[in-house]
């Protein structure tokens, strides 16, 4: 369908009544009282409980699986292995987290012939209680032939590295190279003449960076309930960012018509990209089928979540940049190798865009490699690939600024992209607000405040995220009391029921409280892409806008009938339909719908593409204890171009959350493996996400440079804020103690080592 432009003129600038206010969220009362039903809270009659057997090895061939003893345990109703899955050919599908090959997904859901990482699912049991299922799992006998694992991205790229997937060949934009490899693909962006660019530089800085594997760290473990009914219809209740994506994957993996699968999304306890793909969903459906069509619930524990879901890529990044003494970037070169875990699909593609996105460059070369290793298959994580990339480039930018002796924000301003400039991979930017974030940062009291005390430092960094549009559908109907029921298919992870309802209320000129949004299942609304890519308030909000216009049109018809005038003569403003001096209120017409004709309903479906990139600039003050290597975050300010903040509290919340995750990544979060590829820290004790005591209040500045591609000027906001923090913290650490940290996390141990190395050199 065509998209309607802002009827009030300039997007994001109209004097809005609802947009920009801070109403309570519609799902709030349920969530503060414990009534909201999340994945693990689903309970069905005659429900069985599942448990998973997982690989104790990082890389091994499965020579046999014997489930007979487990099947004999009283209370066990079904056992499944990969042998129960249909054979899947290569099917590439875009699930909103990038493209995935469903053959690999099938292999990830239950290991086929090999286990490829510690924690890889091998077999599952359904029983009358979780305890029985867990006991039975221990009785499944699997014989493994151990293979050498490879865990490090650069090791995996070597010619003599252990081969993880025998049929993998390196792809270079549609062309396959010969020979077995762990390098799934190579991408490249190139512009201008690198040699000429570096020749024009007075200063050249080149550095290598390493970043560890990190997890999304949502507090709610994965959970799914599957019912494979006697009539062949499959219903799955699960905590997911995208019910339609789960429906499609379950349908493809189990070779069922898509119409035979219904996915009912529960409330979701955090996702950050990690709840787009399937893990348990096909397995509970299979178990249910085998267990006499009883519903089966399976919930991961925290160890399973960390061992087998998420994470995002560890990476090796090399960045070289040149600049003139007066602060002009002349050339940049970047090499990125991202590990994808056991199956192709790291976010190196987006990393290669993010890494130089904020800067005007005539001469550049970017190479990116997607590499598989014996770790869990990587999943999207908030601005996938962006944090690692910006960590590297923003540190080099900082170093150049320091060498030149220029204020780091000034240096960025001198090179900042604006409308009409080219992104590193070629396309031209439309209206963006990067420069505005730099100015706001310069003017912020934080940036001007003196920083006193020993071993304290201030760092800044900027970041880019492209955002996403995706497809959204909504349906709406008008109630006799004049309120509107709004059915959405976008799972609400951070207040989007509110931000979407607000856009509908604004469009229809009715009260926010009169909109009743609900997130419904895949049978009850048109297709929706996942809640991800910072698209929901933008895209589903736009669908709500379109449906609002339709409802008003429909109401105008009713008004014309009731007033007995021509439809064309009806005007609508401030909740009043009027024609030649006669008028009827919105609610009045709603009450009289019986008398006037037919119920008022409407649907809308959109696929907007001008989603408007987001830029952010962060300022952080740290204090480093040089005796322990510990970094304390003293003050943090995040500035971001958010287009238009529909519900400012939840926009601020997105910035807060991105900063908190970025700071965790910067300072402490990482997967620790032993040489055999066992994950050693699969708990919230040793996988250290920040606590309330590890962070200060996080100041936010919402810069509103309206996105011309949205009726209300909205840009995605959720992902950009995780891009700058690691770079900002690294630059602050340098400012505090004069050590340039080039590995993430910058944990106390690594900082001590760096200080010792500095002393010794």
């Amino acid at each position, binding site marked *: 369908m065509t998209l309607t432009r802002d009827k009030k003129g300039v997007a994001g600038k109209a004097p809005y009544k609802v947009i920009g206010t801070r109403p309570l969220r519609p799902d709030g009362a349920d969530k503060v009282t414990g009534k909201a039903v999340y994945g693990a809270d689903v309970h069905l009659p005659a429900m069985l409980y599942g448990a998973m057997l997982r690989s104790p090895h990082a890389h091994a061939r499965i020579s046999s699986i014997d489930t007979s003893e487990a099947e004999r345990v009283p209370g066990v109703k079904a056992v499944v292995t990969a042998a129960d899955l249909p054979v899947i050919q290569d099917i590439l*599908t875009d699930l*909103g987290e*990038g493209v995935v090959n469903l053959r690999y997904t099938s292999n990830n859901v239950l290991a086929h012939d090999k286990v490829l990482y510690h924690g890889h699912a091998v077999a599952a049991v359904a029983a009358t209680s979780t305890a029985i299922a867990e006991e039975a799992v221990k009785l499944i006998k699997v014989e493994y032939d151990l293979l050498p694992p490879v865990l490090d991205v650069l090791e995996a790229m070597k010619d003599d590295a252990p081969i993880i997937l025998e049929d993998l060949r390196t792809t270079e934009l*549609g062309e396959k190279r010969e020979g077995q490899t762990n390098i799934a693909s190579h991408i490249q962006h190139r512009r201008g003449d690198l040699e000429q660019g570096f020749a024009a530089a007075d200063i050249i800085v080149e550095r290598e960076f390493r970043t560890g594997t990190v997890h999304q760290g949502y507090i709610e473990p994965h959970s799914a309930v599957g019912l494979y009914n006697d009539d062949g219809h499959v219903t799955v209740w699960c905590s997911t960012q995208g019910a339609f994506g789960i429906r499609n994957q379950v349908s493809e993996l189990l070779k069922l018509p898509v119409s035979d699968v219904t996915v009912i999304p529960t409330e979701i306890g955090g996702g950050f990209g990690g709840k787009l793909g399937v893990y348990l969903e096909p397995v509970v459906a299979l178990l249910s089928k085998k267990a006499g069509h009883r519903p089966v619930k399976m919930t991961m524990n925290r160890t399973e979540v960390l061992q087998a879901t998420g994470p995002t890529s560890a990476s090796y990044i090399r960045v070289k940049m040149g600049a003139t003494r007066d602060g002009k970037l002349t050339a940049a070169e970047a090499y990125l190798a991202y590990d994808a875990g056991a199956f192709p699909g790291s976010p190196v593609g987006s990393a290669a865009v993010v890494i130089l996105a904020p800067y005007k460059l005539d001469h550049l070369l970017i190479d990116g490699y997607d590499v598989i290793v014996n770790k869990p298959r990587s999943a999207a*994580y*908030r601005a996938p690939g962006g944090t690692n990339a910006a960590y590297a480039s923003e540190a080099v930018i900082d170093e150049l600024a320091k060498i030149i002796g220029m204020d780091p924000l000034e240096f960025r301003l001198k090179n900042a992209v604006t409308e009409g400039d080219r992104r590193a*991979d070629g*396309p031209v930017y439309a209206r963006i607000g990067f420069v505005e974030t730099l100015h706001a940062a310069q003017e912020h009291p934080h940036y001007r405040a003196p920083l006193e005390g020993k071993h304290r430092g201030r760092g800044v960094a900027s970041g880019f995220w492209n955002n996403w549009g995706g497809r959204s559908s909504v349906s709406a109907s008008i109630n006799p009391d004049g309120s509107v029921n709004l059915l959405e298919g976008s799972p609400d992870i951070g207040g989007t029921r509110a931000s979407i309802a607000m856009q509908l209320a604004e469009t229809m000129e009715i009260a926010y409280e009169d909109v009743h949004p609900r997130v419904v299942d895949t049978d009850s609304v048109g297709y929706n892409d996942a809640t991800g890519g910072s698209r929901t308030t933008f895209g589903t909000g736009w669908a709500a806008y379109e449906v609002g216009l339709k409802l008003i049109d429909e109401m105008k018809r009713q008004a014309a009938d009731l007033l007995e005038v021509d439809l064309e003569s009806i005007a609508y403003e401030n909740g009043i339909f009027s024609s030649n001096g006669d008028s009827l209120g919105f609610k009045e017409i709603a009450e009289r719908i019986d008398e006037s004709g037919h119920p008022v309903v409407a649907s809308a479906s959109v696929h907007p593409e001008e989603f408007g990139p987001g830029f952010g600039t962060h300022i952080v003050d740290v204090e480093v204890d040089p005796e322990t290597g510990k970094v304390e975050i003293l003050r943090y300010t995040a500035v971001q171009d958010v287009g238009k903040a529909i519900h400012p509290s939840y926009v601020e919340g997105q910035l807060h959350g991105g900063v908190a995750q970025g700071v965790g990544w910067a300072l402490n979060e990482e997967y620790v493996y032993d040489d055999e590829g066992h994950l050693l820290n699969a708990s919230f004790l040793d996988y250290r996400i920040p606590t309330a005591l590890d962070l200060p209040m996080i100041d936010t500045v919402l810069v509103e440079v309206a996105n011309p591609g949205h009726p209300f000027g909205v840009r995605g906001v959720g*992902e950009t804020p995780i891009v700058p923090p690691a770079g900002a913290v690294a630059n602050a650490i340098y400012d505090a103690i004069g050590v340039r940290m080039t590995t993430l996390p910058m944990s106390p141990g690594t900082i001590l080592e760096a200080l010792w190395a500095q002393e010794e050199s």
Partner: protein
Amino acid sequence: MATVWIPPLVQGLTGGRQVVEAPGATLRDVIDNLDAEYPGLKGRLFEHGRVRPGISVTVDGVVSNKRNRSVREDSEIHFVPAISGG
């Protein structure tokens, strides 16, 4: 004629040229005309009649992989990595 930016890894097919021009009123036409001049180009960028998974086409900065989308005389076309988020 529309301007088409050729990704570095397929510039072998355009004799190293980074930017080429091709006539056409739709993306499909432009690509067909381009393939006539640089045989094999279409096969690298498209698969089973669709843009290869993992690639996004931008026309004048707007992403859309629809082959029948219209292209203007002064349009600029790019093939970029598909970026989607978390």
